[in-house]
């Protein structure tokens, strides 16, 4: 069950979005996230959703997979919706009971917030679906590399991120294995108070830490054997080059941003 975790889930493909420069994708995703918070009304938000749908279509990622990325935050979405319905009281009152007031304004705000959160999540997962984690960390490294004075630490941080992402599934597997081993020795993980259950995790985490250290040593040896010596003098197999479609993506995003800003001015109200 824990293997289904979707951190940095990458879907190999050959779509335009896949082939876009990871740096551009990273920048555009950030831009998208910022712009989505700039949206003030349903018209501008509609433009953003439209843009997102276009991007999803171009990425050729199945809609089902995209929806799966929203599943983990379902509770947050529901919670946000309820809070917004309860706390916004403008517009016509539809329902009133003791302290609960449900108004049209509240429902509109709730819908607005829900669409906003979903677009946010879908946009960022579109980035991780179409870009391998190594490329994302690579892109971060390259985007930050003008910071000359901390160049080496930028490389180190990027390498650390790559290794961390690489070892998440391995450590989850290890965790499952140790859990089974401790259960076989009679460890009780499911019953008892919260404190007792937390304590029961200690015999799982200690072996996990010890093996992690051993892994770290072995990985360091293996990396040294493959001539790793930090970021200096390193080349990359995957060169990052701006293509025509990267420029198209940028122009598209700029147009969408401009559209959102003008729609905000034209329609000053939420709806």
């Amino acid at each position, binding site marked *: 069950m824990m293997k289904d975790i979707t951190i940095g889930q990458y879907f190999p493909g050959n779509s335009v979005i896949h082939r876009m420069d990871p740096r551009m994708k990273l920048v555009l995703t950030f831009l998208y996230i910022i712009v989505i918070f700039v949206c003030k009304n349903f018209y501008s938000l509609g433009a953003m959703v439209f843009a997102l749908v276009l991007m999803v279509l171009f990425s050729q990622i199945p809609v089902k997979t995209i929806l799966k990325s929203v599943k983990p935050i379902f509770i947050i979405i529901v919670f946000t919706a309820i809070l917004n319905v309860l706390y916004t009281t403008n517009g016509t009152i539809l329902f009133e009971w003791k302290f609960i007031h449900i108004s049209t304004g509240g429902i509109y705000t709730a819908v607005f917030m829900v669409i906003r959160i979903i677009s946010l999540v879908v946009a960022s997962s579109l980035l991780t679906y179409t870009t391998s*984690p190594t490329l994302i960390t690579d892109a971060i490294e390259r985007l930050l590399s003008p910071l000359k004075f901390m160049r080496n630490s930028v490389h180190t941080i990027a390498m650390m991120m790559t290794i961390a992402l690489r070892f998440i599934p391995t450590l989850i597997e290890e965790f499952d294995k140790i859990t089974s081993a401790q259960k076989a020795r009679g460890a009780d993980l499911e019953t008892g108070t919260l404190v007792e259950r937390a304590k029961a995790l200690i015999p799982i985490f200690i072996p996990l830490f010890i093996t992690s250290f051993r892994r770290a040593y072995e990985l360091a040896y293996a990396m040294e054997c493959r*001539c790793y010596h930090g970021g200096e003098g390193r080349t990359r197999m995957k060169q990052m080059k701006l293509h025509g479609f990267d420029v198209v993506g940028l122009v598209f995003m700029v147009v969408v941003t401009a559209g959102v800003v003008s729609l905000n001015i034209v329609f000053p109200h939420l709806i």
Partner: protein
Amino acid sequence: MEEILKFDNVSFSYDEITEDTSRTEYAIRNVSLSIKTGEYVAVLGHNGSGKSTFAKLCNGILVPDEGQVLVNGLSTHNPSDDETENLEHIMKIRKDVGMVFQNPDNQIVATIVEEDVAFGPENLGVDPLEIRKRVDESLKAVGMYEYRGHEPHKLSGGQKQRVAIAGILAMQPRCLVLDESTAMLDPRGRREVMNTVRKLHDDLGMTVVFITHFMDEAVTADRVVVMDKGHVIMDGTPKEVFKNAERLREVGLDVPQATEFSIELSKIGLNVPTDTLNTDECVEALSALLEE
């Protein structure tokens, strides 16, 4: 033939070496050995025989306390006090002697197969187009080309180990050292890795040093080196080495089943050769005996 790897009276200890050498516990003691280009050498030994230390000495991860290890004529000792010079020197050695370890999970760095294979040449500063070419060639050589876009944790043990081998091949080494690379695999994975290594040796003429404690894996080698307590105790062709079943058992090793079978048969007075290495040879010997 050219010598790719030469151990010149090498001793190594994990402890501090004191004046009184009789009290030092050596992991490797006075080992002299030379491996020629294109050889397929199996290094056998029980736990604690020093065979893993031997592997680590091959490419300068460990540096001998006494004697020296020469890779392609270069000593693994630091040549000077200058750090950059030392780095260049050790990189030259590690580029020539590629090492594959036991646990495939702990030697794969990247999250995508082809990116991991590219890791070595990237460190060497190879041109991007050339890296692409080498990555494709290496993955094809180990039969993992179709998996180039996969995530390593979704592969089987044998496949991961083949990816690790491809990662070394992409550095274009002259010698491949496998430090018990099959020990953690299931029989199928072990066969996959063995066949891959065999193919690299036969097709590309790769020098292979195969460290193992499985006798059956040593049978196909050109040469078998047996280690015990830090010493080399036997060195010869598989036939020569496995004839000494008694001596091998003394140091905690077995002989291949076929060899043991024929040795037992000859003990009860049957006229069979005692140097059969595999089932086929054994069958041949027996049918010859039956025809008589």
